[in-house]
């Protein structure tokens, strides 16, 4: 079906159905059943007639038997907006397996379930295409005389790539129905990670047009130096149902380089000299665990679901177990 969602995973996802408390609050009519009572063809319940009710919904057969007036109630089918925020910064282009790849798989799974549940899916990718492509190309760009000779060609290729990324991003907007799943997967596969942005203003700008009720799922490594939870705070402030999925690579849990190190941040270019040995591994792991716990605690305090996954984890089990605890689907 797709490189992101294999047949086995698809079978698992097919059994899942998006379940969110935001359904009932949605006012838009859609294809998805909800707890709200409305005008669909699905019978839901009876209730005694009260003055002012629509005569058309009175069950006359029941009146004939019981000599009392009862109204027939039907389920309301409404539409849910699901916004997925995919971190495609340079830090996600890391690890084995690559964090971005796993993040895309998670987003694909989320989207597949959301589309299958009749939700309206939008995937927001950050940083923007210009930032992502610019840094990625700079990293692989030739240097010296070769760069001068191929400068124009390089710029042309870069422009094409930015356009392609834009196209991919546009293909991830306002998707409805499972029939769009294939396109959705292809657009996800076409994304390239890279670049770095200031999270908080970007989220503020992107979340401004979104009105609740809606579900926001942020898939990121949450390793921003300034405000790792800045985006979450913005979304929570908008009144959305927010879920955070942290993706960390195994190498971030257990570094495989020791000695006198000069660590360079691939996003910011900052560096830090560290003397790291195996004897400090446990202390490092405690630091990482503490960081994850702090994120989880933050999310708990703000009513946000949180799950931290390793990029080498079994995705099928992860989606079936961990994400079920988030209440995203049932």
């Amino acid at each position: 079906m797709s490189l992101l969602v294999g047949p086995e995973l698809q079978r698992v996802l097919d059994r899942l159905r998006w379940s969110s408390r935001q359904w009932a609050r949605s006012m838009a009519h859609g294809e998805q059943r909800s707890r709200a009572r409305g005008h669909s063809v699905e019978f839901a319940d009876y209730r005694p007639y009260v003055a002012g009710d629509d005569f058309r919904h009175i069950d006359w057969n029941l009146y004939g038997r019981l000599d009392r007036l009862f109204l027939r109630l039907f389920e309301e089918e409404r539409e849910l907006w699901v916004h997925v925020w995919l971190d495609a910064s340079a830090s996600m282009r890391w690890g084995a397996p690559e964090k971005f790849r796993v993040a895309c798989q998670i987003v694909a799974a989320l989207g597949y379930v959301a589309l299958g549940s009749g939700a309206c899916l939008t995937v927001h990718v950050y940083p923007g295409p210009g930032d992502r492509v610019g840094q990625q190309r700079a990293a692989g760009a030739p240097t010296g005389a070769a760069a001068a000779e191929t400068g124009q060609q390089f710029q042309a290729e870069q422009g094409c790539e930015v356009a392609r990324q834009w196209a991919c991003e546009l293909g991830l907007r306002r998707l409805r129905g499972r029939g769009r799943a294939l396109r959705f997967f292809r657009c996800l596969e076409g994304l390239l990670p890279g670049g770095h942005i200031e999270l908080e203003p970007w989220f503020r700008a992107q979340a401004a047009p979104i009105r609740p009720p809606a579900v926001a799922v942020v898939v990121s490594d949450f390793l921003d130096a300034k405000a790792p939870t800045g985006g979450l705070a913005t979304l929570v402030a908008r009144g959305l149902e927010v879920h955070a999925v942290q993706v960390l690579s195994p190498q971030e849990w257990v570094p495989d380089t020791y000695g006198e190190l000069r660590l360079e941040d691939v996003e910011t270019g900052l560096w830090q000299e560290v003397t790291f040995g195996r004897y400090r591994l446990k202390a490092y792991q405690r630091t990482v665990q503490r960081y994850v716990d702090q994120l989880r605690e933050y999310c708990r305090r703000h009513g946000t679901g949180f799950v931290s996954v390793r990029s080498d984890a079994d995705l099928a089990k992860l989606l079936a177990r961990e994400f079920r605890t988030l209440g995203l689907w049932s």
Partner: protein
Amino acid sequence: MRFLEPMAWAFAASLVLVVLLHLLKRRRRNVPVPSLVLWERFLQDTRASHPFQRLHFSWLLLLQLLALAVLVAALARPVWVTSVPPAPLRVLILDVSASMQASDVAPSRFEQARAQALRLVADAAPGEELAVIRAGVQPQLVQTPTRDHASVRKVVSALEPTDAPGRLMPALRLAEALVRQQPDARIELFTDGAAADWDEGYASLLPLTEHRVGRQGENLAVVACEVRVDPEPPQAARLVARVKALSERALSALAELRFEGELLERRPLVLEAGQSTTLAFALPEARAGLWELSLETRDDLAVDNRVVLPVRAPRPVRVVLVSPGNLFLERALRALPWASCVVATQPPPDLAGVDVLVLDRVPLQGWVSVPVLAFGTWPWEPGTDTRSVESPTEIVDWDPTHPVLRHVQLEGVHAARLEIRPPLSGAEVLAECRWGPVLLAGQRDGCRFVWAGFSVLDSDWPLRVSFPIFMANAVNWLASDSRTPDAVRAGEPVSLRLERPVWEVEVEGPEGQVWRWTPGSLTDRPVFGPPERCGVYRFRSQAGVSVVCVNLLDENESDLRARASVLKEPERVAGGSGTGLFVRREFWAGLAAIFLALLLAEWWWYHRRSV
């Protein structure tokens, strides 16, 4: 500041090691990471956010604790106190007297003794302790007991014989003090047996092995010599010397008399074995200068073939008589041809230039640095420790061997009133009556004195012949103390008599070497020596120049004839019977080395685990 372990400075090389370790460049690898967030938090966590944390096991901690503990232990200078059996001690006594210069054995007796001593040192067991005593005029422990045989060899090689007579008994007593508590200790004596104070009875009680050097030496020696100048003009002089053939056969020589290097007279001399003769040289005029008598002969000892004597222009002895009036004393003093007498009723305040102060019933006020001849009252502390006798008393005993009473007969001398004084320290009793001492002679405050416990006016002594002789002897004996001696024997101290006190004296030795000598205090009577080299010594100071001649003039030392040793080989005492010695062995150096090794291990471990 001194260091008990100067070798510890070798550890200073570790400073270079530390610097070298720091010179090693830390090469950091560039590692790109997705984010520094986790690393910065990790570094922040590992920094001290709290003053304390739970103690976790760490090999680094263990190594550091071990290193610190070892360093602290090293700083405490730990010692093992072990009881070890006493190491055999040998005390080497080398006779450095003048007779050891004798060449009857090639190259000399002393060189032969030194060779034997060095052989003994070479044959000594490694753990054997050796000490060296130089037996000269005064014994000198030139090497304390040590197992460092190289330093013992160095000390023995540096010893040289002197021109002074040897004294072995003080050296033996010093050696006895060293070996007293050690039954296995031995005393090795290297001598020719010419010392005059040799006591075989005492030596036989010591664990002594005598290494006798020398054979039958033949020596023609000047054993006595004196120059006397007639005080009367034209002041003729007479040099009298006694020459003895200390050999088993007849010896001949050529006696030469020189004045300041100029040969004046030469006499042939032939002496049978053991025979001595007196040489008298009459000199019409006693010229001031150095007179030298030398024997041109081929004998085995050269140091006693030459005698140097200074002759000075005779100076009258200045005598001050302090008396209320005493014709006998005045006339006796004026009768001395080599003395000039001044009579006074009170002691003059300035006694500079006075050779003898004669007090007749007059006490002294304060301290004087002039020889004193006192009659009647004890002049220093009148009334103390003296007992007056008012009855006529006869002198019953006297000492005719004392220079003051030479040729003096006190038999029948009476005194109507006299004072009896108990003997003093530093004074000799020259004459006694039945009540006690009445005539004392000795030294007080560095000056000679003669005291008679009666006034000559209360005695019949002035009417006797012995009185002017006594006065002449007394003034002569007292005056000799107020002048620097012209000549002394080698090994005797030189008592300088200077015009005024000095701090420092420049000494010119017999070989022309000049050095500064500090007597130790501001004094006008410094004592030099004893000199161990024969020859002319010149003492220059602000008070003038004094010339003193040092000659051997020791018949016993010049006698090189063989002397048989009667010492028997002492019985060897079985080893291990002595008391053990408690030896403290420090081992902080080893701990310091361990500390250094631990430090390096800690450094290695730190760098090893970080890669």
